């Protein structure tokens, strides 16, 4: 055979080509694999932006106070209740005409719905909650929006406050219908008013039923949240400050993990120069939380301007079954200084699945007063500055129990907590 060597050479060449192709594919695969792990390493420590807290939701009113003034009857709609949704929807579909500045709102009204917002309403937010209001000339409403009627069967007015001036406009709400709904509401779910020197507190009356719930506590992984605060997590220095606190810092910012309260505190000490931005403190705080691990799905924002100029604090208070969870360890608190997020304090354990819930009637104001008289002196009762129905959190292991309770703040600053189901003193006591 003459061309045998050529055939053999071709076979060898083909074999080499096949082997080379295998080797090249392997390199390509390994190369991609290595790149992937490199990227994957940093990616595994980064957290995707979340959608909670969501901006219009957190800015919603934290309660609506419904009043039939002529009969001195009051009801309070807490978030989540059908009444709350009804009146919020009423606000969003409202038509307003003849909006004009007024010196003061009328002192005597026959019917009134007060929307209590926890944060000032910027123009964007006002436009969201009152889309049919032509309010382009106005901005920065403070936290209150009112619907009121001044004489029986008369027209219903909208009242707004902005930068110290009040505005009033006529609405398309039917006064007769409004009276009927409010009268029904204040009779089926009446609340009583507890007046103190400078505050009005509302207490459920007439054996209203509220929910106590038990939840599984889930621990959020610390490192991904910590890393999300830094430009380059690879240059972080971890400092064990003491047995229960750990500090991570890159020299420009710092995050402290306090294991006792299980909270993370982020601080940006560079926030000294003024940044100009059109964003409101609330939207800035919401965005920042979304980018750094997210927050509770249902929460309402409360904004306080600090004594320092250019500083605002926004607290996101989680609500469960219409009531806020009391206690700073459950709040997400964002401080904005000079239009820049200067610090964040947030819990690390979050509510997981609901294990059980039970509903019971709560003490009304007379029963509460009877309980207080057993445990407090007359002067202590007189020194009560405010009373609030909220959820008292108790943690046992990895289980969180939320108990409806009355939080009584005394004028001296002390707080008493009374179980709203059975009148047991949960906190405080003694004189």
């Amino acid at each position, binding site marked *: 055979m003459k061309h045998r060597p050529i*055939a053999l050479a*071709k*076979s060898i*060449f*083909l074999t080499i*080509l*096949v082997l*080379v*192709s295998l080797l*090249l*594919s392997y*390199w*390509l695969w390994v*190369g*991609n694999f290595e*790149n992937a792990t490199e990227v994957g390493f940093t990616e595994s420590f980064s957290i995707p932006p979340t959608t909670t807290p969501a901006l219009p939701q957190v800015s919603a009113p934290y309660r609506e106070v419904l009043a039939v003034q002529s009969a001195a009857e009051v009801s309070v709609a807490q978030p989540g209740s059908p009444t709350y949704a009804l009146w919020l929807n009423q606000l969003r579909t409202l038509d307003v005409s003849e909006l004009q500045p007024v010196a003061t709102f009328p002192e005597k009204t026959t019917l009134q719905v007060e929307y209590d917002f926890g944060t000032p309403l910027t123009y964007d937010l006002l436009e969201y909650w009152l889309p049919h209001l032509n309010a382009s000339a106005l901005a920065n409403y403070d936290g209150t929006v009112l619907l009121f009627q001044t004489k029986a069967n008369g027209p219903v007015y909208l009242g707004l406050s902005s930068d110290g001036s009040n505005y009033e406009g006529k609405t398309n709400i039917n006064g007769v219908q409004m009276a009927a709904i409010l009268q029904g509401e204040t009779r089926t779910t009446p609340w009583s008013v507890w007046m103190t020197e400078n505050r009005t507190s509302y207490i459920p009356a007439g054996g209203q039923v509220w929910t106590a719930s038990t939840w599984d506590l889930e621990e959020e992984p610390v490192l991904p949240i910590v890393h999300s605060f*830094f*430009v*380059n997590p*690879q*240059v972080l*220095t*971890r*400092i064990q*400050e*003491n047995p229960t*606190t750990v*500090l991570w*810092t*890159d*020299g*420009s*910012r*710092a995050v*402290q993990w306090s294991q006792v309260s299980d909270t993370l*505190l982020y*601080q940006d*000490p*560079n926030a*000294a*120069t003024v940044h100009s931005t059109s964003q409101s403190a609330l939207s800035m705080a919401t965005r920042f939380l979304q980018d750094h691990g997210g927050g509770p799905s249902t929460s309402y924002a409360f904004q306080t301007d600090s004594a320092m100029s250019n500083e605002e604090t926004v607290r996101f208070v989680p609500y469960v079954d219409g009531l806020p969870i009391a206690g700073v360890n459950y709040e997400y608190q964002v401080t904005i200084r000079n239009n820049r997020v200067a610090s964040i304090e947030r819990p690390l354990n979050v509510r997981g699945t609901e294990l059980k819930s039970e509903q019971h009637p709560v003490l009304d104001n007379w029963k509460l007063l009877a309980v207080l008289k057993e445990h407090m002196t007359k002067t202590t009762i007189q020194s009560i500055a405010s009373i609030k129905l909220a959820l008292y959190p108790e943690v046992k292991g990895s289980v969180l129990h939320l108990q409806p309770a009355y939080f009584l703040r005394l004028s001296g600053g002390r707080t008493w907590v009374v179980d709203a189901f059975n009148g047991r003193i949960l906190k405080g006591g003694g004189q």
Partner: protein
Amino acid sequence: MNWEVAKNWLIAAFLLLDLILGWQIIQSHRETYGYVESYSDLLANTKTVLADHGFILATKVPENQPEIPTFRAEEARPQLEQMWSGIFPGARILKIRHRSVVTSAGSVTLLRTGYWRVEYEPPLVGIKPADVLKTALHGNLYVPDPAPESAAVVTYVEEYQGYPIFDAAITIHRNKKAILSYDQNEIVHITPQGRAKPVISAMDALNSLAESVDNAPIGVDNKILSIQLGYAEKTGVGTLSSSLGRERFWFPVWRVTTEQQVYVINALTGEVDLSS
């Protein structure tokens, strides 16, 4: 089909496949390692960016990019009684007060924790500023500050692993004839925290400075006189634990000295410290 013909086709097909795969690998290599710009190109870029923001680069830009650690330290708390005899050898004591000692050669005053001032009375004539280090407390730990010195003030800084600690310094005040006084700040018990970490290049630090500080509105160009890698204390970082007695931390920084101002740039993140 004949096996020989099939082999020809297979050879052609595999040759093509190998070429494609090889091309892919070369491509991915290029992407991974990138086209590295030369130092002079980078420098020219940086100069342009700086010029846009009113800076003139009038110094050599260091090329080193080492890995250095963050450290924790404390302010020195020397005793007055033990200090003065070393600072003024052979002098007699005239007066001792709570925070100062007056001797026949001058005085030592404790300003605050870790800081003290030495005043020569009469002023020292005929010696070089470096000679002051011989009598200063732990003067051998200090090295000349690499920043350009001025006629009235000469600065020496403490060193940690060959890098200057910019805020632990001996600042000597002099006039044309004599040395008048110096202020000293000393930190002790330096303990590194965690592993050493790579710092950003001086060029990146300058780019970052140009991005966050703009001199253009002033109308006068600001000349950059020097840029060095060293340490600076970050205030604010330790305040998180203020209730526990503040821990103090020093971080790697690039210090940029200009005619008008000194900028401190975090050498780990490139952020310009605008807090002071």
